[in-house]
């Protein structure tokens, strides 16, 4: 089959009706650029949700005592040996953070609230949201710091300020209540108020003193490369015998389900846009075929095979789709990186988007796999759209066409 000839004919035929094909090209370009931009925003939202889930003291992998997730308290704790870190490739790990995280009641002079009381080593918390928050006053100095860091919203609810004392009541390992006063070192301002109301931090050694046990309830691990998650998890499972080693998908199933759902949503969104576009493409191609009935009749009369006729029509569709996709992808990429590169400020809807686990600035995230998907699927749709018009062209009887 003379592909060069058919390609030459297809390209030149596209120039026969410049205005019509230009409009079609414009529609393809706008659709593809729109899909690229919206895909990048959806991806941004998706990665935001994952980052928020991982940064929310979860990490990519966490080591827990059995039963802690169902009943999180100091009894579901474990002690760490001096050499508690297993040998894993250092380049795969961003950081380790052992913590005590137990329920507690916090009281100011005026208000009482239920909170998660978290003992941390501040030098290791670069892997959680605590490493990014703005602090008014001071942060925790070290693992032995006996002051507390409370959320700004919680401080507002407790009607207290930096420097004042708060009383925290929690349960010790022996089952008896422990109560102690803690001075407020500082207040932290996380994105949204959910985290601020939930977590109160102190030094892990200070909290161990309060519960009178040198234990932790979790070791959180953040990875540099998520691809190594499965192998690291396997190594940790072998090392921390008798403990549960879980990844973020198991710890945050709702966020994980959303993550998977977004993959499907991107595909469905793409199908909707291209599905709408395909009608325009089919219509234009049918018009192009019907206008050239006599020409197709002549081609068939002089011996062009039906397969070659199909290829010619498919090539016309593919060529215009290819150009539209290329221009659309470039425009979409420029819009994503230049116009929306700094993200979209969603502060006005901060409360709502916090519930969805997103941040207040939505940063687009352009993935090569999405561009490949758009390109390959667009070309597939281009071929698909051409099949019916091509079939119409093949069904043209040379004799009838030549008589017109």
């Amino acid at each position: 089959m003379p592909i060069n000839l058919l390609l030459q004919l297809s390209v030149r035929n596209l120039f026969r009706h410049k205005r019509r094909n230009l409009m079609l090209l414009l529609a393809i370009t706008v659709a593809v650029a729109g899909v690229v931009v919206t895909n990048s925003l959806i991806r941004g939202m998706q990665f935001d949700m994952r980052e928020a889930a991982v940064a929310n003291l979860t990490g990519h992998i966490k080591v827990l005592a059995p039963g802690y997730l169902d009943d999180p308290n100091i009894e579901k704790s474990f002690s760490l040996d001096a050499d508690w870190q297993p040998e894993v490739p250092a380049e795969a790990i961003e950081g380790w953070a052992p913590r005590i995280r137990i329920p507690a009641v916090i009281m100011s002079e005026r208000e009482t609230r239920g909170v998660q009381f978290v003992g941390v080593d501040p030098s290791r918390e670069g892997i959680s949201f605590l490493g990014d928050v703005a602090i008014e006053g001071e942060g925790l100095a070290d693992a032995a710091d006996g002051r507390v860091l409370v959320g700004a919203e919680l401080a507002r609810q407790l009607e207290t300020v930096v420097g004042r004392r708060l009383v925290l009541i929690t349960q010790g390992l022996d089952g008896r209540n422990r109560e102690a006063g803690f001075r407020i070192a500082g207040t932290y301002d996380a994105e949204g108020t959910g985290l601020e109301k939930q977590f109160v931090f102190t030094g892990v050694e200070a909290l161990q003193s309060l519960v009178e046990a040198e234990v932790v309830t979790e070791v959180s691990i953040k990875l540099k490369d998520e691809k190594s998650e499965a192998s690291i998890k396997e190594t940790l499972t072998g090392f921390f015998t008798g403990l549960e080693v879980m990844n973020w998908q198991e710890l945050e199933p709702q966020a994980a389900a959303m993550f998977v759902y977004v993959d499907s949503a991107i595909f469905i969104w793409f199908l909707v846009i291209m599905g709408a576009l395909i009608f325009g493409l089919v219509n234009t191609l049918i018009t192009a075929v019907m206008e050239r009935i006599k020409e197709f009749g002549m081609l068939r009369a002089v011996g062009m095979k039906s397969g070659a006729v199909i290829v010619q029509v498919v090539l016309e569709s593919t060529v215009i789709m290819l150009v539209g996709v290329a221009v659309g992808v470039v425009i979409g990429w420029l819009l994503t990186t230049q116009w929306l590169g700094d993200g979209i400020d969603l502060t006005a809807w901060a409360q709502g988007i916090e519930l969805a686990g997103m941040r207040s600035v939505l940063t687009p995230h352009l993935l090569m796999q999405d561009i490949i998907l758009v390109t390959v699927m667009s070309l597939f749709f281009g071929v698909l759209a051409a099949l019916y018009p091509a079939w119409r062209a093949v069904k043209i009887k040379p004799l009838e066409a030549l008589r017109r």
Partner: protein
Amino acid sequence: MSDLVVRCQSVSRTYQDDSVPVRALVNVDFEVHRGEFVSLAGPSGSGKSTLLNVIGGLDRPDEGTVEVDGVLLNELSESALSDLRLERMGFVFQAYNLIPVLSALENVEFIMQLQGVPAAERHSRSTAMLDELGLTGMADRRPGEMSGGQQQRVAVARAIVTHPVLLLADEPSANLDSKTTEELLKLLRRLNEEQGVTIVTATHDPLVMSYAKRQVRLRDGEIIEDSAHDEAA
């Protein structure tokens, strides 16, 4: 190699025109020998174009057999018919039917491209053919930039550049003035006499008939006069 290029035996073809059967060909027996220049003449509806189309494999007879260059057309699939037309026949249509997006040279090369002739050979044969038909300097012009006579000559060049066994021309002069028609007919006669191209043309133009060596007249789907038989008699 048989001397017979076309053999039609008892060929009949009936059309439905608004549910009314129209007998376009009735028991036609017709033969064309290699090197002949035949004109099929007759008034509209006489069946001349139908006979030409049946010979060209563009239409199938209801009854009878059609052989072209020893190949029985009745038994061929559409695809095989397509191959036969590509490899052994040349067509000149009433409305030229050149491809508007291709230049004159590319139009002449077109069928050779379908046949898979190498580019260099295509180019040299097409250029030589255009020169031979007086179209030197027209190679890069598209059909829309040429006169009707020039377009028809390009169509003839496209049809014969592949050295077909049989050249079929349906009303080739219908859209031409008498001067251009005469030029075209001289060209066809020269091709017939010098290159031995077998030509069958359907026409109602007396000028075309006068240039053909053999005149076949049809009326109501039947051959009523054949100059070859008359001469033999």
